[in-house]
């Protein structure tokens, strides 16, 4: 079964174009890749270059949500679930040098085979994780 209505497609395409436009702008003007995990990792780690633009980008990410608020957000129910997931996301993106934005959006836009492989790998492992959790009786 596939669940999708036309309003959802329009929002997905419009939102995707905004994400792409933000990534394009950061590359065209700052010469930087809009990979959120990379930017976060550099903010907390040994500073590579100046930090101002990183804080600007991360701050900019937050502002629209502060103004517009959230329609709905289904967060993990249990603290242990949130922590386990967060640790794996943090460690995995640091080891694999990228996440959904860095590899999935910017890397693919840059026609990078490396990012294509990373994207296929994390999508596959995420699909299997959801399969086990939702249909395999784990949780």
């Amino acid at each position: 079964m596939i669940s999708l209505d036309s309003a959802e497609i329009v929002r997905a395409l419009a939102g995707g174009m905004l994400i792409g436009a933000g990534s394009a702008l950061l590359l065209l003007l700052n010469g930087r890749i809009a990979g959120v995990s990379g930017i976060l990792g550099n903010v907390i780690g040994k500073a590579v270059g100046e930090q101002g633009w990183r804080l600007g980008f991360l701050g900019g990410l937050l502002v629209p949500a502060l103004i517009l608020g959230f329609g709905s957000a289904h967060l993990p129910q249990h603290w242990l679930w949130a922590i386990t997931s967060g640790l794996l996301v943090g460690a995995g993106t640091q080891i694999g040098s990228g996440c959904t934005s860095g590899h999935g959006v910017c890397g693919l836009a840059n026609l990078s085979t490396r990012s294509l492989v990373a994207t296929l790998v994390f999508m596959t492992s995420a699909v299997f994780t959801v399969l086990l959790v939702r249909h395999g009786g784990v949780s």
Partner: protein
Amino acid sequence: MKFLTALVAGLLFGSGLLVSGMTDPANVLGFLDIFGEWRPQLAFVMGAAVLTAAPSYWFVRHNRRTLLGASVDLPDRRRIDQPLLAGATIFGVGWGLSGICPGPGLVLLASGHGMAYLFMAAVLAGMWLVQLMRNKRDLR
């Protein structure tokens, strides 16, 4: 100047995450759950984002400069190594557990929900641990 342009880029990116519905983990998990009632939005979001950003990447890759004339070094695009594969696998498991990746996770902080703060604190801790191990190995 660099701060301001990055801020505007972040504003666009953050609005896109909100508009697209990707800040609701239920939509992401719905995409990953291909064996349940599949929700393909994420594919449309990613497709539109990649197509929108691609011309700019082509431009910068060919000119090796930004529009403002600064030189740009884009990362090596071909090397596929063990860390890439291992890291992507680990990230995928974490992403599948909650439906949250770093971008939406950060935006979710604006919801004021405690679980979002816990998640992002764990993300930073995970990054920090990897950096710590890397530094130790480099010292040896």
